[in-house]
């Protein structure tokens, strides 16, 4: 009997951020020590400049890891199977200068797991169809993304993130600049995914329509994790104005910005 079969089964976190400091060059913008368990729906909250986007980019290897480490399903970031994690970047619009259909956009999310040098096969086409279906854009698949509403564009980006077969979805401010009806539609999509077992990490200014899904809140402030726990236990102290301006180069985007964060957490 060898050692590995006798060792107790240690549950492996979907994403483990071990005392990691993330930033650009020498500038540290976020510090965290957290584990995202499989099946969690984690909201990363915080005002502008609090380091919440840097934290999720650090999880993805999109910013420098200045100290500590990141693991995906127990494997170091550099050796991780990238098809397990789908990323939905913060974007006002998914459109470049040249028209791109929903199908073309979503197919580009399948490339890395399929082998970017290979022609797409029937399995890839099925995965693309399924991703478009799950976000409710089947009727729009041949339309250019630029002609869709803001909310539909976000859902198209979610589908691209899912197309590679992701078990974890990381979304950076998907509700920003999207009207209430579209926010509700996106929340519906995420609910379906969460119920299907997808782990979700979502960067938000306010919980809004996502609140019923969220199992855990990680609140960032001034580049550090200030709270990590269930929604109901988020301390009221986090709702004060002084979280708006910090030393990390955040931009105050207008009076609505803080209000959203304040009202959002406990708005029922």
């Amino acid at each position, binding site marked *: 009997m060898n050692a590995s079969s006798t060792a107790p089964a240690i549950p492996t976190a979907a994403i483990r951020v071990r005392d990691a400091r993330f930033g650009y060059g020498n500038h540290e913008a976020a510090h965290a020590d957290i584990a995202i368990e499989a099946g969690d729906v984690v909201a990363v909250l915080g005002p502008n400049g609090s380091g919440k986007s840097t934290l999720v980019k650090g999880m993805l290897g*999109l910013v420098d890891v200045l100290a500590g480490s990141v693991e995906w399903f127990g494997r170091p970031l550099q050796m991780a199977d990238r098809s397990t994690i789908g*990323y939905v970047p913060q974007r006002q619009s998914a459109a*470049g200068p040249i028209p791109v259909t929903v199908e*073309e*956009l979503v197919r*580009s999310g399948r*490339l890395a797991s399929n082998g970017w040098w290979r022609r*797409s096969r029937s399995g890839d086409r099925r995965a693309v169809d399924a991703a478009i279906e799950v976000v409710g854009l089947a009727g729009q698949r041949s*339309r250019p993304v630029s002609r869709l509403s803001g909310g539909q564009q976000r859902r198209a980006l979610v589908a*691209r993130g899912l197309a590679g077969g992701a078990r974890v979805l990381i979304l950076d401010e998907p509700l920003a600049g999207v009207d209430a009806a579209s926010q509700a539609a996106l929340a519906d999509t995420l609910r379906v995914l969460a119920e299907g077992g997808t782990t979700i990490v979502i960067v938000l200014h306010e919980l809004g329509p996502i609140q019923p899904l969220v199992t855990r809140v990680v609140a960032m402030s001034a580049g550090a994790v200030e709270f990590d726990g269930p929604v109901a236990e988020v301390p009221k102290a986090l709702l004060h104005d002084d979280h708006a301006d910090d030393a990390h180069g955040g931009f105050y985007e207008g009076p609505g910005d803080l209000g959203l964060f304040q009202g959002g957490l406990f708005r029922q």
Partner: protein
Amino acid sequence: MNVSMTASMAGPMIGAIEVLDYDFMRRALLAAVLIGLSAPAVGIFLVQRRLALIGDGLGHIAVSGVALGLVVGHAPILIALVTAIVGAITIELIRARGEAFGEIALAMLFYGGIAGGVVLVSRAPSGTRNLNQYLFGSITTTSASDLLTFSILAAVILALTTWLGPALFAVSNDDEFARASGLPVMPLNIVLAVLTACTVVISMRVVGVLLVSALMVVPVATAQLWTSSFRTTRWLAMAVGFTVALVGVVLSYYVDTPSGGTIVLLAIAVFGVTVIAQSASRLTRR
């Protein structure tokens, strides 16, 4: 042999018109077709990446290569190819560092390229007159060996942009997502940069290195006015590039104008007419 074979194929299609009576015109038309197809095939990715003018910069760098070739009196096109490829890789490495001085470093590279070319060519036995042919195109100078080089480069460009099209699209469309999903972004960007360098070189005889960027951008800009997908934009842009290059060369022969300028003005005219026609049809529909 290569040339006469192609001419015999092109002949029936275009009709027995006068331009085909001359060897140099047959070669020029074939060179025009090669650049007309290749430039938009590469350009569409540059436009989507919002780097539409990078071809212009590489053209500037290629000037040094041409001038070096003229000075040593040997293979200016091949020397320009090597110079442009080295320049393209250098540009990608500078861009990947993403530092504040990156843009200024690129400006130095581009203007250093053209300044070096102008200074070098003053030492060339043939003088500065020859350089003009490469800068703005000169159809009568296309030789059979040039055509062979252009054909090989165009074949490489069309094959790679087709084979790697989906990956080049993913990287051009959303660099950050591509990195997060694990695509080899840097190698793919270098492939695109090298293909851009090859396009610059194919353009030398017909359009010229200072005007080639127009053929990478304008047919793509025209095509996207009509299309609703990336795929159809690519094919339509290549069709527009093919047509304006071919018609431009014939036109330049009959009205006795430089081929490069004629082709580019024609491409811009097609874009302008398209915009006006679409605006007019939208107004009448109201």
